[in-house]
């Protein structure tokens, strides 16, 4: 799959688009980074992000290359439920909205998700949480870096190593220059590009083929895709829902935004982002169902979207797909680089290595960490080990184990540190066992169920009485 034979653009056009966006994103990163004099400006965009940029960054970060390419793949493999199941990923964003409000109330001066876990549950739960978070963040970074190289190669024929290097270089450069401000600013433009791209492709697919012909041809060739009782698709739906909630609830990508948004913006921004995100997998995915009408022979399921676009629109369609995929990749990669560097800076460097570091030292260290993360990701992605690409599949068990400890920690005074620790450890271990014993579609489900049971039982049997006011004093210097 993804061979040069599936390329829908020539390499010269690919290089031209890459060069144009490299210049644009890096220049904007430099421009927005000029004013970031303080650490808060660099790490959290001054804690003053408004509704427009807040909504767009939450939405763009959740639109990854997967959303734009795997949604059509799922439509082709799992039919209607594939698209609808994928769109349930938006539930995580919407459910996080009230949590953001609570987080800002309880931890107004926090920096990372680790700050909350450390102060709420103590050092050992914090360390286990950090391990889960770092496994997930590095796994996602590698997955995105590899996806960048593979997709650029598949769409343009540009060699994997070059494509992967260019996308990492661009994202590291502008994140390094402008910090979270550059990430959020570029996310707004990338959101608009993604939305215009998928709308254009969807409208042209409908006007060129029409719902009636599309429905008739799918019904004739692949009727199971229109079946509402397709069992595998329904299992996928629930697993995807829990994986999504776990990813958002624990990851510092989303917590750092909770701290970066202006007060009273977080709830609205996440809720609206969820509503805006929900239809994207459907709009981006349904064009795959045009494949039977177009008589397309699809060699690799994840290339069905670009192939339909290129068949319907020729060169213009291929360029639109390339820009959408490139924007989706960059908007997630930059956010992950910034949020992971914050986590390493605040929870590992500041928390474990140099607790007395000054703001200036932390600012310099933040840049070094972004650069180092970029280099490590590049080195791991370079050999293109196929199994690494599926790394993210295992992580459903990890992230789903954090859902209940986080919810209980935010809302239940009686939730205990020992219960949270046991829930994360047991949830992860049993979730991984389920992954290998039963299948990928139950890992997150089992992990969340085990974790929930432990949190509920431990809160009932070993209740604690947590003083919420302890959270309000979290600052960079408070690492006990």
């Amino acid at each position, binding site marked *: 799959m993804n061979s040069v034979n599936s390329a829908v653009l020539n390499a010269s056009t690919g290089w031209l688009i890459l060069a144009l966006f490299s210049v644009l994103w890096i220049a904007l990163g430099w421009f927005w980074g000029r004013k970031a004099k303080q650490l808060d400006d660099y790490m959290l*965009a*001054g804690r*003053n*992000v*408004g*509704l*427009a*940029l807040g*909504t*767009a960054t939450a939405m763009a970060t959740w639109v990854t290359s997967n959303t734009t390419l795997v949604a059509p793949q799922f439509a082709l493999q799992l039919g*209607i439920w594939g698209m*609808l199941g994928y*769109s349930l990923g938006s539930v995580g964003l919407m459910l996080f909205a009230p949590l953001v409000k609570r987080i800002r109330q309880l931890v107004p001066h926090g920096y990372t998700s680790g700050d909350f876990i450390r102060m709420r549950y103590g050092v050992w739960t914090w360390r286990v949480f950090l391990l889960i978070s770092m496994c997930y963040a590095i796994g996602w970074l590698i997955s995105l870096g590899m996806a960048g190289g593979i997709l650029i190669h598949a769409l343009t024929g540009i060699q994997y190593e070059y494509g992967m290097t260019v996308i990492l270089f661009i994202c590291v450069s502008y994140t390094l220059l402008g910090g979270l*401000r550059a990430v*959020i600013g570029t996310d*707004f433009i990338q*959101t*608009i590009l993604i*939305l*215009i791209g*998928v*709308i254009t492709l*969807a*409208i042209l697919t*409908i006007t060129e083929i029409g*719902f*009636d012909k*599309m*429905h*008739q041809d799918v*019904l004739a060739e692949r*009727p199971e895709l*229109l*079946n*509402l*009782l397709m069992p595998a698709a329904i299992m996928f739906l629930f697993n995807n829902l829990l994986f999504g909630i776990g990813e958002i609830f624990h990851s510092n990508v989303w917590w750092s935004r909770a701290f970066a948004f*202006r007060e009273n913006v977080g709830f609205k921004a996440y809720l*609206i982002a969820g*509503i*805006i995100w*929900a*239809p*994207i997998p*459907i*709009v981006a995915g*349904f064009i795959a169902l045009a494949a039977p009408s177009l008589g397309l022979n699809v060699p690799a399921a994840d290339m069905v979207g670009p192939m339909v676009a290129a068949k319907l629109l020729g060169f213009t369609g291929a360029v639109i797909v390339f820009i959408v995929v490139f924007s989706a990749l960059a908007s997630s990669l930059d956010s992950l680089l910034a949020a992971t560097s914050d986590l390493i800076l605040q929870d590992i460097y500041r928390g474990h290595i140099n607790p007395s570091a000054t703001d200036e030292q932390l600012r310099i260290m933040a840049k070094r960490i972004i650069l180092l993360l970029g280099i490590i990701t590049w080195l791991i992605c370079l050999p293109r080990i196929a199994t690494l690409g599926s790394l993210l599949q295992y992580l459903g068990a990890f992230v789903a184990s954090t859902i209940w400890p986080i919810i209980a920690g935010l809302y239940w005074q009686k939730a205990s540190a020992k219960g949270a620790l046991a829930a994360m450890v047991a949830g992860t271990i049993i979730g991984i066992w389920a992954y290998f014993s039963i299948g990928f579609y139950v890992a997150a489900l089992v992990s969340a169920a085990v974790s929930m049971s432990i949190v509920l039982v431990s809160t009932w049997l070993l209740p604690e009485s947590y003083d919420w006011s302890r959270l309000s004093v979290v600052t960079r210097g408070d690492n006990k």
Partner: protein
Amino acid sequence: MIISESVFAFIISTALIITCVSPIVLIIFWLKDWKDQNLW
């Protein structure tokens, strides 16, 4: 249980309409924040 053409068209059309409104909403938010100097 196969979905009919009209349900199929309804699902896709609803999703498309929400997606079409989204960039307009974001740009209106941006203009309002920019006017109030609340972008960031």
